[in-house]
C-alpha cells in the first residue's frame, strides 16, 4: 500500500491518509478483504504519530470503507456496502466536475461531452461489477 504524506500543507495528515486509502479502495488497488498494515507499521513507515493513523482508520471504519475484525486487524470492507458505494460515487462526481470544467473552458457544450463519453473506446469494454 503506497501512501505519500505532505507535511507542509494545511491538510491534516489523518485526512490525507483517509483520502488516499479511500482512493486506493475506490480505484480497486485495494480489494475487499485486503488487510491494511498495522497502525504501528504504517506510522513508522510514514514517520507520523501513531494516533494520527489510528484516527484515520477509525474514521474509515465509520465511513464503512474498512472493518475491524476480532483478530485485531483492519480489512477493506466489502464493496457492496452502501457507504462504500456512496464514497465511490463521490470520487467519480469529483472527476466528472473536473472534466466538465475543462470541457466548458475549451468551449464544448454538455451534449458534445456526453456524446464523447458514449463514443469513448473504453465503452466497448464490459463494465466492472460493483
Amino acid at each position, binding site marked *: 500500500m503506497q501512501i505519500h*504524506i505532505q*507535511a*507542509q*500543507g*494545511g*491538510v*491534516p*495528515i*489523518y485526512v490525507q491518509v483517509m483520502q488516499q486509502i479511500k482512493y486506493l479502495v475506490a480505484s480497486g488497488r485495494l480489494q475487499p478483504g485486503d488487510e491494511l498494515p498495522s*497502525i*504501528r507499521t504504517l*506510522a*513508522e513507515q*510514514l*514517520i*507520523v*504519530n*501513531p*494516533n494520527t493513523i489510528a484516527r484515520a482508520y477509525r474514521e474509515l471504519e465509520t465511513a464503512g470503507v474498512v472493518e475491524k475484525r476480532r483478530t485485531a486487524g483492519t480489512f477493506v470492507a466489502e464493496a457492496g456496502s452502501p457507504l462504500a458505494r456512496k464514497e465511490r460515487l463521490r470520487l467519480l462526481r469529483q472527476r466528472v466536475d473536473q472534466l466538465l470544467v475543462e470541457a466548458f473552458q475549451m468551449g464544448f457544450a454538455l451534449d458534445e461531452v456526453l456524446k464523447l463519453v458514449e463514443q469513448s473506446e473504453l465503452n466497448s469494454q464490459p463494465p466492472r461489477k460493483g
Partner: protein
Amino acid sequence: MNDLVIDIKNLHRRFGDKHALQDVSLSVPRGGVFGLIGSNGAGKTTLIKHILGSHYAQSGSVSVFGFDPVAKPVEVLGRIGYMSEDRDVPGWMRVQEVIDFTRAFYPGWDSGYASQLLELFELDPKQKIRNLSRGQTARVCLLLALAHRPELLVLDEPSSGLDPVIRRDILTAIVRTTADEGRTVLFSSHLLDEVQRLADRVAILNRGRIILSDPLDTVLESFHRITLRFDESFDLAPSLVGAIESNGQGHEWTYVYRGDREQWTQAAKRLNAQIVHEVPLSLDDIFVCNVQHS
C-alpha cells in the same frame, strides 16, 4: 490521579533585565507527542531546563510527574530521557565508557535495548566520542536518552544540523516511543514539517510567552486563508471580524481567518461579500502569522 506529565503554571524567569519566560502555563498530558515551536531565542531551551530542574522557578510553579523537579531531582530525572540541543558528551570518552557512565544513574537501564540500539545505529563501542561525526554523536545521545526506557522523552531541537538519514532515526525513535503505551515525548523544533508529522499537541513560544497551545488538528482546522469578492472596489481592506491579516486590492481581498467556516461565512455575509477561495493554512504559515501578530 493527575494525568498531566508536565504542569507548568504562570512561570516567570528573568536573566538580568531580560525576561526569558513570561507567565508561561503549559500542560502536557500523558501519552502523546508535544511539539514546542519557537524561533531561536524564544525561550524553548530555558523552558526545557525548568522541566529538568536545572533552573528553579523564580515565580510560578513547575511540576513534573507531580513533583517539583528542583526539590525532587531523583524522582524526576530518573524517569526522563533527555537529549540536549548541543548534544554534549565528553569527547575523551569511548562510546562504551559513556554508556557505562550513564547507565549508573538509571536503575531502569535496559542493557539489551542499549546493545540493540548500538547495532541499529551502527556505533562502534570502542570509538572515542571526539572522533565521531556530528550525526554519530547525535545517535550516541539518542541512545543514552532512550536506553532506560523513560516515561518522558525530552528532545531539544533533536534534528537541527543533522542530515536526513539521522533525522529519520530520531523521528522514528519518537514514533516508537509514543507507540509504547503511556510514554510521552516533548520535543522542541523549528522544523515545522517534523512537528506536523509527529505532534498531537503544539505550543508556540514567542519572546518568552506561550501564544498558542492546542491539539495540532484543532490548530490546523482553525486557520484558513479566504478570499472575498466585493461588489464595490475598496482602497483599504474592509474590516472582517475574526481576521488576523489582510491584503489585496479593488474588489478582491484575502484574509487570514481564525475560526470555523460558519463564522467566516457569517462575517462575509455581513459585508455582502462572496467567498471565492478558501484554503487551510500550513503550520508554517500559522506560526509566522501568530508570531507577527502577537
